[in-house]
């Protein structure tokens, strides 16, 4: 286990509980997909794993030792766990060249060695060859796929152990998407990287993830091996999510009513019950325990197994 969240909660203001008790373990060398609608707290959870927000409850631990929030410790931590953002154009400073963008981590952490060589190597690793050709380009002169590769190179130059990728391909063209996902798979092979992919796209999870965790309103409601969760979903919410993936072979889509729920007004009992198509009276009142978030297939539902 390389990175783990234990009973983590993140509160904004007085009421908004964006993440409300989550357990999640990342094992070395695996790719985990964290899936859910926007506003379900998946990005906030990712940010707290990076140490960018401090949980109001619970512990994040890296290689067994809990994360400390002193400036110096955080800085050291950040060379180990790196972030890849959704919109590569926004993630690159428009006034910095590719070289500057990739070298940034080296400069911040004062990594020894020839900067130029390190940058070249990082660019080559993500498939931008020959690297020298890209040094003086600006982000707006690159294509979407190239930009995302630059962002990944900037993260890899610190030789991190864990990558956290927040919707890494959702702003890219469909034809480029596969190339970036293949790159993630290749990096996992070559560098034994552990990757957490935050996404709303179940197809992506099927493409790359070993394990899937489905989040709803601040909690993980179902998690387990991707092949099991995605082919045999147990939680009604996962079933609904699966059914609306545009796919001609599906017949009956379970379209849930209403908008994404509000994290400042979490319902009692099972938090999914107001939108759940199969809810029974007990669901309104019975508390559902937090999932362990480890390797097995777990479901946070009163009715699991019966249907």
């Amino acid at each position, binding site marked *: 286990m390389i990175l783990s969240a234990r009973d983590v909660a993140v509160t904004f203001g007085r009421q908004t509980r964006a993440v409300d008790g989550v357990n999640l373990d990342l094992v070395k060398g695996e790719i985990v997909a964290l899936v859910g609608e926007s506003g379900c707290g998946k990005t906030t959870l990712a940010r707290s794993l*990076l140490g*960018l927000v401090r949980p109001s409850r619970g512990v994040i631990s890296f290689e067994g030792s809990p994360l400390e929030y002193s*400036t110096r410790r*955080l*800085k050291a931590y*950040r*060379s180990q766990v*790196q*972030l890849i*953002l*959704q*919109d590569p154009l*926004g*993630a*690159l*400073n*428009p*006034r*910095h*060249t590719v*070289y*500057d963008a990739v070298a*940034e*981590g080296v400069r*911040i*952490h004062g990594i020894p060695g020839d900067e*130029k060589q390190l940058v070249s190597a990082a660019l080559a690793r993500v498939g931008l060859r020959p690297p020298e050709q890209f*040094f*003086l380009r600006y982000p*707006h002169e690159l294509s979407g796929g190239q930009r995302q590769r630059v*962002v990944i190179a*900037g*993260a890899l130059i*610190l030789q991190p152990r864990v990558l956290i990728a927040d919707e890494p391909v959702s702003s890219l063209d469909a034809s480029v998407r596969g190339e970036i996902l293949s790159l993630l798979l290749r990096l996992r092979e070559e560098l034994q990287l552990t990757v957490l992919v935050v996404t709303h796209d179940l197809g992506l999870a099927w493409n790359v993830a070993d394990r899937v965790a489905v989040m709803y309103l601040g909690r993980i409601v179902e998690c387990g091996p991707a092949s099991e969760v995605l082919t045999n979903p147990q939680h009604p919410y996962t079933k609904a999510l699966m059914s609306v993936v545009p796919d001609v072979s599906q017949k009956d889509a379970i379209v849930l009513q209403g908008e994404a729920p509000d994290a400042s007004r979490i319902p009692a009992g099972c938090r999914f019950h107001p939108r759940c198509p199969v809810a029974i009276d007990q669901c309104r009142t019975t508390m559902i325990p937090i999932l362990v978030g480890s390797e097995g297939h777990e479901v946070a539902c009163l009715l699991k197994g019966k249907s």
Partner: protein
Amino acid sequence: MSIATQRRRIALTRFWMSFRHDRTGMIGLGILGAFIIVAVLAPILIPASALDVTKADGGRFQPPSLAYPLGTDDSGRSVLLLIASGTRISLTVGIAATIISMVIGTTVGIMAGHFRGPGSHALVGVTDWFLVIPFLPLAIVLATVLGPSLLNLIIVIGVTSWAGTARLIRAQTLSIEGRPYLERAKALGAGNWFQMSRHVLPNVIPLVLANTTLTVAIAILSETTLSFLGLGDPMAPSWGAILDNAFSTGAVSRGAWWFVLPPGLCVIAVVLSFTLVGRAMERIVDPRGRD
């Protein structure tokens, strides 16, 4: 480092290429160049005696002639030479005051935009206060209390005019703070200083520069107004002070247009050209203008 200089050169060249195609901006730059040459050469070409009331050799309020192309003032000095030497003072006050204003405005703006908490709130409060308070009455009170001198004039204009810049820079900083690349820098481990100096500052600098030229225009106008009200240095008459002199010696009722018209036209030319250059720069650097 060669890559950094190379990059800077590329950026500068690109900026100049865009600016060169902006017709009004280039006209402004041309006019400005002419005035700057006059300002630099004035003390060399104009003998001190020409500006001395006691040594003036022309008649009172003489209309333009060959010897005095723009006529004479109430004490017989050449209006042309007065204006030429006033150029230096008007430009100096305008630019010096702007530097003060920009340094305060940019620092306050970036700090107020980058940090959170009570300190930032206090900075925003002070900025808002200076924005709300009417400029000229405040400047008059300050200048009166400090006494008339060139340095005080610069300080008063600088200290009363930074708030607009601070607000602009704060807004820009806030919008940069919200961009993903700052999040990425934080995730890479960058501290406050690194974030502000490497990401925020380079992205606000072009806006600061465009804003600077616009602020110079306003500072020169402010200087003219304050000098007209008699708050300038009586020993170093700027264009505003010349107009004050013209007004208080009755040039208007005498119809001495050569004493009134030219200083005002100079103010317009300089302020307008600063405005044109500033607007052209703004068009090039304004992130909203592109894509």
